[in-house]
């Protein structure tokens, strides 16, 4: 090795050795550090002269020895205090910290409350995140579970309900599915238990429970021959039914329940975490989807399990190939097309996930803002406490000791805030769950509660924030030097430039975070106003919808039901203050009767494939009452024949448009021809966000819906048939009592299931958006308040610090305006810079909101332009108060204080 080469290598090695030495205690380094380096350098030099390998080996050995020495050098020479190094020392730190906190109750309280509430929001949101997204599906391999719906490539529409033939065929496609099963949600009347009741239930094909993959808690699942016509009736019950109605009695297997009048033997109990298809079903009954019946499979839902290794996305090409093959081999009227989507049992959908994540992100930003606020507060307190720390240091406390004590203070504050947070979260969660729309929280409300994981999360975050907030003050306190602080010059020494920049930086952070949240809220507000302004196609002012549940045992046919309702409507029309009455099978946003129609005019079929349509039966008053436009022709009249029909405009367009008026149309080859009397404007049949609810048609009350549209089924078959009475009554809710009186005068046994203003019902369909907007508004407002408090705090502190300076300036002839601009300038810089930073951040982050905004670009200029104005206004207000205080400084008194 050349002399210069190994000299430079040695130099590097020595430098690294010095770095290791930094870890030794100070007095060790003072006494032996130079000697150690010298010895190492000598050793190193000699070895490198011998050779590179020897040199490197030696250096490594020495490094190792030096590192090992770090621990040995710190070994206590006296016996450590009881509890070990960290034990007793820490306990003492905590005791001191408690005492110090008690001495400044306002700061402690303010901190605990601020952090506590921020933590409460965070905990509540985390609980929701945990419940909706982190808890895995109880079923094995849930991403192979798919929902199978019909898909028509020609119309681009997807709709549920496979026909028998389609079901049979796809079941046999073993390359794609290991199983394809069907189910139907329903309600059943159960007697034979403690009391008669109506329960949510599901009819399932015998193999479905096995496909889901969760074994029963008691008993067994269905065998493949159960559910066939003629087989003995069996049923499986849920764990909650078994627990609450059957007393957890293992002997209840084999007991009989009367379900809808027929005896069913209980053969199994499902475990508590089994939910299918939603969280509310309590009974599962087998059925044969291939059985004959009025329902030709129209509305049966289909669940499939994909072949191993496939997901809904990766299965797409195989599906396309299979569809192509089937279409060429054996075309059928409905078309073979299917679409696969992840089953709802495998977890929440994308939109829900995104909404929850956005809210969680927002809450995290609020927490960060609160932390910045608290950190600022603690920092300013630490500056004021310099004297205290300097004294402690002068009395012998090491820098590390003071640091640790302040850290202990932070830990205590964090724990306090955590406790407050958990308590508040419990309350907040209850409120949140009640207000949240059903779609957002798929879990039954009981599952969303604070459990161990959430507790642990909160504890960690609380401790973290407590320590974080006290970190800067702790550093500062450690460095409090003796002399300056012990003399009375502490006050005027005030904060160093570093501290000032730190505090300003924190406020800057707060302002920018508030801006980000405000932009988010602004975007959502814009989106929501767009939504609320959607033309639904009808009026809702002053209109109430009364849903009457007609007993199908008493009024068996639709004709009987409609006749009864017509009588009731006539009576209601006589009531004082009632301005118009109509009857309808359904009213938006209820979908009413959904069916599959093969649209056909006298000139031939309109579409190749069947398409989903919404059917309604309405009295003639329906159209003028709701203000539905007449697009062509006329609306229904009293004297129309049963075969008259009014088409929705979108539906009519498929078959020729305005020219249809007066012509005939039928919805099924087996159905009778209907005469089109008119075309009505489109309405949002199933809610504001409904995309394809417009394929609607209206029959008169005495029309025969069953014959006109054979392929229909109700989503939920119930013993009572809900029908609507619509009325306009300025008297509002009081008028409804009269309606009930009139109804029950005719027939006392018909329940009123619901009576609400129509506007409320329609508003329900945008519950999720309203909920999101509400939360975002709350979060952003809180952040704005915190940021304003931050601005106020910094400026007030500045004014207090610079009182003397202001006094001097005033005495030397500065005007009030000069003083004002002095203070406001600092404020404006903070607000301005913070806003710019926040806008940049919002610009980058708004993309995340893309899926949740309705017809609003995430970079919407109006939202981005108005927010800075709001922040500026609020910020100036916050800056105004300290500025005024500066103006009121009396030069004489200010100069005297020093």
């Amino acid at each position, binding site marked *: 090795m050349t002399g210069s080469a190994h000299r430079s290598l040695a130099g590097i090695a020595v430098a690294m050795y010095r770095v290791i030495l930094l870890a030794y205690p100070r007095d*060790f380094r003072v006494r*032996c550090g130079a*000697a*150690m380096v010298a*010895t190492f350098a000598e050793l190193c030099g000699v070895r490198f002269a011998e050779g590179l390998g020897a040199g490197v080996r030696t250096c490594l*050995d020495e490094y190792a*020895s*030096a590192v090992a020495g770090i621990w040995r050098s710190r070994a206590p020479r006296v016996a450590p205090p009881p509890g070990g190094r960290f034990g007793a020392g820490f306990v003492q730190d905590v005791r001191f910290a408690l005492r110090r906190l008690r001495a400044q109750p306002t700061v402690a309280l303010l901190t605990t409350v601020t952090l506590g509430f921020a933590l409460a929001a965070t905990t509540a949101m985390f609980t929701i995140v945990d419940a909706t997204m982190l808890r895995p599906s109880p079923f094995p391999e849930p991403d192979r579970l798919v929902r199978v719906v019909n898909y028509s490539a020609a119309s681009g529409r997807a709709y549920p309900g496979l026909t028998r033939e389609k079901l049979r065929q796809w079941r046999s496609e073993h390359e794609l599915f290991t199983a394809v099963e069907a189910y139907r949600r329903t309600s059943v009347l159960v007697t034979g238990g403690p009391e008669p009741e109506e329960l949510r239930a599901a009819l399932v094909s015998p193999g479905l429970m096995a496909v889901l993959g969760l074994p029963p808690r008691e008993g067994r699942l269905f065998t493949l021959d159960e559910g066939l016509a003629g087989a003995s009736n069996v049923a499986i019950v849920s764990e909650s039914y078994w627990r609450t109605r059957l007393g957890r009695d293992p002997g209840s297997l084999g007991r009989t329940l009367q379900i809808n009048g027929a005896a069913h033997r209980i053969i199994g109990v499902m475990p508590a975490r089994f939910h299918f298809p939603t969280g509310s079903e309590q009974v599962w009954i087998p059925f044969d989807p291939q059985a004959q019946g009025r329902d030709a499979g129209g509305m049966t839902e289909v669940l499939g399990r994909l072949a191993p290794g496939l997901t809904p996305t990766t299965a797409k090409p195989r599906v396309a190939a299979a569809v192509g093959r089937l279409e060429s081999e054996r075309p059928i009227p409905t078309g073979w097309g299917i679409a696969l989507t992840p089953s709802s049992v495998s977890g929440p959908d994308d939109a829900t996930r995104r909404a929850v994540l956005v809210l969680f992100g927002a809450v995290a930003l609020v927490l960060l803002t609160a932390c910045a606020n608290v950190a600022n507060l603690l920092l300013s307190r630490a500056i004021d406490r310099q004297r205290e720390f300097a004294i402690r240091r002068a009395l012998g406390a090491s820098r590390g000791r003071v640091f640790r004590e302040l850290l202990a203070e932070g830990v205590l504050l964090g724990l306090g805030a955590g406790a407050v947070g958990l308590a508040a979260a419990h309350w907040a969660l209850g409120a949140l769950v009640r207000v949240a729309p059903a779609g957002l929280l798929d879990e039954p409300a009981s599952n969303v509660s604070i459990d161990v994981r959430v507790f642990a999360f909160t504890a960690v975050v609380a401790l973290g924030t407590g320590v974080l907030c006290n970190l800067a003050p702790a550093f500062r306190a450690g460095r409090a030097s003796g002399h300056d602080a012990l003399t009375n010059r502490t006050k005027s020494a005030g904060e160093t430039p570093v501290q000032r920049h730190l505090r300003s930086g924190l406020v800057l952070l707060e302002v920018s975070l508030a801006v980000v949240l405000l932009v988010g809220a602004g975007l959502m507000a814009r989106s929501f106003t767009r939504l609320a302004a959607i033309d639904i196609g009808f009026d809702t002012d002053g209109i109430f919808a009364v849903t009457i549940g007609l007993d199908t045992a008493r009024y068996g046919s639709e004709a009987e039901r409609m006749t009864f309702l017509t009588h009731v409507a006539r009576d209601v029309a006589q009531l004082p203050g009632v301005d118009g009455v109509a009857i309808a099978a359904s009213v938006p946003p209820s979908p009413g009767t959904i069916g599959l129609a093969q649209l056909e005019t006298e000139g031939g079929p309109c579409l190749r494939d069947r398409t989903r349509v919404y059917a309604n039966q309405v009295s003639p008053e329906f159209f003028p009452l709701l203000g539905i436009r007449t697009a062509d022709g006329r609306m229904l009249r009293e004297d129309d024949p049963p075969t008259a029909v009014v088409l929705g405009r979108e539906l009519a367009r498929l078959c020729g448009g305005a020219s249809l008026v007066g012509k005939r149309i039928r919805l099924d080859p087996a159905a009778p021809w209907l005469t089109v009397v008119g075309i009505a404007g489109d309405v949002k049949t199933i809610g504001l966000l409904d995309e394809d609810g417009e394929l609607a048609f209206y029959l008169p009350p005495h029309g025969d819906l069953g014959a006109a549209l054979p392929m229909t089924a109700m989503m939920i078959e119930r013993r009572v048939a809900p029908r609507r009475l619509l009325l306009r009554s300025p008297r509002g809710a009081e008028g409804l009592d009269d309606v009930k009186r009139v109804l029950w005068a005719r027939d006392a046994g018909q329940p009123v299931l619901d009576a609400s203003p129509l506007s409320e019902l329609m508003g329900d369909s945008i519950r999720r958006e309203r909920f999101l907007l509400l939360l975002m508004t709350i979060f952003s407002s809180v952040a704005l308040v915190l940021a304003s408090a931050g601005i106020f705090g910094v400026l007030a502190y500045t004014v207090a610090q610079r009182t003397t300076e202001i006094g001097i300036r005033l005495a030397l002839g500065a005007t009030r305006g000069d003083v004002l601009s002095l203070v406001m300038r600092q404020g404006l810089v903070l607000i301005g810079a913070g806003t710019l930073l926040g806008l940049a951040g919002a610009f980058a982050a708004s993309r995340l909101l893309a899926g949740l905004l309705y017809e609003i670009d995430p970079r919407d200029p109006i939202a981005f332009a108005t927010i800075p104005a709001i922040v500026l206004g609020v910020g100036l207000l916050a800056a105004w108060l300290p500025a005024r205080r500066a103006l009121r400084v009396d030069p004489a008194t200010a100069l005297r204080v020093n």
Partner: protein
Amino acid sequence: MRRPAGGSPVTLTPVEFHVLLSLADGERHGYAILQEVARRTDDQLRLRTGTLYTVIKRLLDHGWIEEAASPPDETDDRRRYYGVTAAGRSVLRAEAQRLEALVRFAQEKRVLARPRKLAPERGR
């Protein structure tokens, strides 16, 4: 450092013993101590700086060695010299005597061979 109660003699760890021993016959600097110990033990005990200096610090704290001035002919002024103090010398002697006593016991028990006297026995 193990300090038995009641004022009985101190025991030194092997490394402490060797370092004190190296300084017994004069002041030395760190590197020299390393070299001497390695030579004395035939490379059995190769001290490294970490070990060496934790021991040196401990001996300094006990007052058994002290920093010494560099000898006048020392050209490298980075070298730091150490020397043994009176207290250190007495501790060293005490330890050596303790070890010697242990060796004698081992010899009586025939665990160690008695050394063959090279000089002729007295009285022969």
